[in-house]
Structures are given as structure tokens and as C-alpha cells.
């Protein structure tokens, strides 16, 4: 794909983003939103049109819906002036991203994401937001402080965004030479069945569900050294049934394949035990840190608080400048 098309799409997106960022009349924001989404759509179309031979693979409609929702919610998150709404839009992003993960077959992660992010982290954010809320002063035009309304340097931000997006999309579309080809279907299936082997209890339960009298364990494949064999008809095991001495083939149904949750759990324990433990330690330390940090109250005198909020000192003898402006912050 010619870089110019790529970059123009990115530029479109950047311009749109810029327009969205500034507080502007509704028409402008609408135009900005359309531009941004238009750019994204164009990019996606290019992806669909394809790069490389044998392209024009159709995109899953669910993918399109979820990704659009995610992007729109993200855009709204960064442009909304009220922080609580931003947090809520973030929840929407999390949900749609969970949907995308589901499409990718990562169920556990999808739900973990929802539970941890939307459930725990975002709630914490909302608590802090409420804690750090500044009451609006009487006589002010809007109820929001100025720093929430007006973004800083939207042009620079949009430009940087454009550069990074151009970079990433260029990398995506020019491809990585050393990207290993994906495993083919049968190989992948075999890999999954092999994992079932690592779970003896379930393995046995599945075999018994098909063939109750199967004598565990089945025979080992002399070629591969595994218990489960896979061929064109599916996975099967060879083994003895009950008291007969003849080797019977037991076909394992597809439902016997381990689920994503089980697989992830197996991987965590089998392949990354240390990381698991370390993650626990990290969480412990974070808990300690948070408790320690948020515990001490810093005593500030009235004057220091006033100064910190940008107000002048109270009138004292000898200080001529004693007039205080209407405070921008609370006590």
C-alpha cells in the first residue's frame, strides 16, 4: 500500500481529532468526529482490501461493531469535559474491548478485564474523583474548572498522535519479515489436544464419558510419545476396554477439548509459576504503598493552602497588597 494513502488517512484522523478536542460549536465537533471516524474507516477498508496476495478477507461484522464502539468511546472519553463522564466512557471502552477479546477466543481475559478494570479500577477512580472534586464557586459561569474545559496544546497532541499512528500503521502494513507463519489448523488442534493430556483427571473423565469401561491410561503412540492421537477423523485414543484384550479406538468429541479458562490456568501454573508468585508480591507491595501514601495528612496552614490555590495572603500589618481575588478553589 502506498504510504501516501496511509498517511493521508492518518492526517484525516489527526485533523478530526484536533477538531474534536477543542471546545467548539457542535457543528465543528460533529464534523471532527466524522472526519476521525472516516479516517479510521478508510484505514480499515484498506486493511480489508488487503495487503499481500489472497486478500479481500471479509471482516467479521462483530469486529467492526466492537472496534467502532471502542474508538468512539475512547474519543468521547478524552474530549468530555466532566471527569466522571470520562470514566464512564472508559467503562464502555473496556466493555467493547472485552468483546473484541471474546472474538479472539480469549474468554477468560475478556471477563477478567471486565471484572478487574470496570469493576475494581474504575470504581477506585470514581472514588478519587469524588474525593478530589472542587465545589463550584458561586458566581462562576460554568460549574467546571477551566482546566477541564480547555485542553492544552491540542495541535501538538494531535500532531504527535498522527506521527505515532503513522508509525504504527506503517509497521503493520509493511509487515514484519520475520513473522513466523501461523500454525496450520491441524497442528493447532493437535497442540490443544496435547494439553488435555496434561490434565489427567479431566482426560479420564472425558474418555469415560464416551467409553465408560475404558481402562486408563490409553496406549502411547510409539511415534509421537503421546497418549492422544489425531488424524483426519478427529482425536482418538487407543486403549483397552474393560476386560477385553483388544485395542479399541475411542473418539473424543470436540467438546472434550479444554476450554480457554482451563488452558490459561494450566499455562499459568505450568509455564509461569514464578511470574504468578511475583505478581502476587507486587500486588502486596502496591497495597502497602497505597496505604502508606494515603494515610498521612499533610497539615497546611491556611496561608499555605491559600497560596497553593493561587490566592493572595490574608491582610496583615505592613503588607499593602491584601485584596484577595475570588478564590478559584475551596478551603
Amino acid at each position, binding site marked *: 500500500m502506498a504510504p501516501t494513502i496511509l498517511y493521508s488517512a492518518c492526517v484525516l484522523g489527526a485533523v478530526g481529532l484536533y477538531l474534536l478536542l477543542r471546545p467548539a460549536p457542535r457543528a465543528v465537533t460533529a464534523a471532527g468526529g466524522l472526519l476521525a471516524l472516516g479516517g479510521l474507516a478508510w484505514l480499515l477498508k484498506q486493511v*480489508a482490501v488487503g495487503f499481500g496476495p489472497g486478500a479481500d478477507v471479509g471482516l467479521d461484522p462483530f469486529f467492526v461493531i466492537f472496534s467502532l464502539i471502542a474508538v468512539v468511546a475512547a474519543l468521547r472519553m478524552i474530549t468530555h469535559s466532566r471527569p466522571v463522564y470520562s470514566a464512564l466512557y472508559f467503562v464502555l471502552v473496556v466493555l467493547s474491548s472485552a468483546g473484541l477479546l471474546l472474538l479472539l477466543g480469549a474468554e477468560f481475559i475478556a471477563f477478567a478485564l471486565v471484572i478487574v478494570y470496570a469493576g475494581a479500577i474504575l470504581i477506585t477512580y470514581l472514588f478519587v474523583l469524588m474525593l478530589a472534586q472542587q465545589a463550584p464557586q458561586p458566581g462562576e459561569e460554568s460549574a467546571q474548572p477551566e482546566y477541564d474545559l480547555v485542553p492544552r496544546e491540542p495541535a501538538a497532541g494531535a500532531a504527535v498522535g498522527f506521527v505515532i499512528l503513522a508509525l504504527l500503521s506503517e509497521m503493520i502494513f509493511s509487515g514484519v519479515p520475520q513473522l513466523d507463519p501461523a500454525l496450520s489448523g491441524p497442528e493447532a488442534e493437535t497442540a490443544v489436544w496435547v494439553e488435555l493430556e496434561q490434565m489427567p483427571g479431566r482426560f479420564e473423565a472425558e474418555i469415560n464419558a464416551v467409553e465408560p469401561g475404558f481402562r486408563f491410561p490409553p496406549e502411547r503412540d510409539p511415534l509421537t510419545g503421546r497418549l492422544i492421537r489425531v488424524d483426519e477423523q478427529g482425536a482418538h485414543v487407543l486403549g483397552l476396554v474393560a476386560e477385553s484384550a483388544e485395542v479399541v479406538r475411542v473418539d473424543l468429541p470436540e467438546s472434550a477439548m479444554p476450554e480457554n479458562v482451563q488452558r490459561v490456568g494450566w499455562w499459568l501454573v505450568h509455564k509461569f509459576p514464578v511470574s504468578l508468585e511475583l505478581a502476587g508480591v507486587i500486588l502486596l*507491595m502496591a497495597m502497602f*504503598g497505597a496505604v502508606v501514601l494515603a494515610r498521612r495528612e499533610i497539615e497546611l496552614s491556611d496561608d499555605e493552602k491559600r497560596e497553593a490555590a493561587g490566592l493572595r495572603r490574608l491582610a496583615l500589618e505592613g503588607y499593602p497588597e491584601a485584596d484577595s481575588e475570588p478564590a478559584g478553589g475551596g478551603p
Partner: protein
Amino acid sequence: MTLALIEPLAQPVLGAYLLTSAVLLVIGVVGFLTRRNLIIMFLCTELMFQAAALAMVAFGRYHLDLSGQVFVIFILTIAAAEAALALALIVLLYRRKETLNAEAWTEMKG
């Protein structure tokens, strides 16, 4: 759905997922650079984490390797820890200056 498990991801589709991840990342970057509210800034970093997680899982699916998902679990862990500490710090900063404006902290200028 189980077929989806075994069927590898075509490259264009991988590209689409990566693009979405990239767009989300960029939006997160722009949000971090433009918003002045400290809490929203950190929220945008969380958005960047999201994008990273999506990319991880997409690659994992492409290679039919579960390492991607495992790594995302750890990302989640770290994100949670970091969010906790960041919010504690924000609370402290707020107590100092009574404002959530990131531009209030410019003592290192010049």
C-alpha cells in the same frame, strides 16, 4: 466457536486488530498529552494498557500461543497495582495544592 480456536487468524484480520489497538493507543496518548486533569491523564494511561492488551492477545491468537493471554493477565495485575499507587499519589498532590490541574506543578521549569 471452538473452530475459531483452532483456525488461525488470517493476516489481514490480524492487521485489523492491530490497527484497532494502534488507534486506541494513539487516542490514549493524545488524551494523556491534552487533558489537564490529573485523574483523566491516568485514565488515559489505562486506555493505553487496554490497547496493549488487545495487541498481545491478537498476536497470541495469530500464533495460536497462549502466552499472549497469560501476559495480559500480568498486565492486568500491574495495571491494578499502578492504578492504586497513582491514585494515592494524586490524592496527596491534591491535598498539597487543592487542585487537580497538572499545570500547577511547574517548579522544575527553567
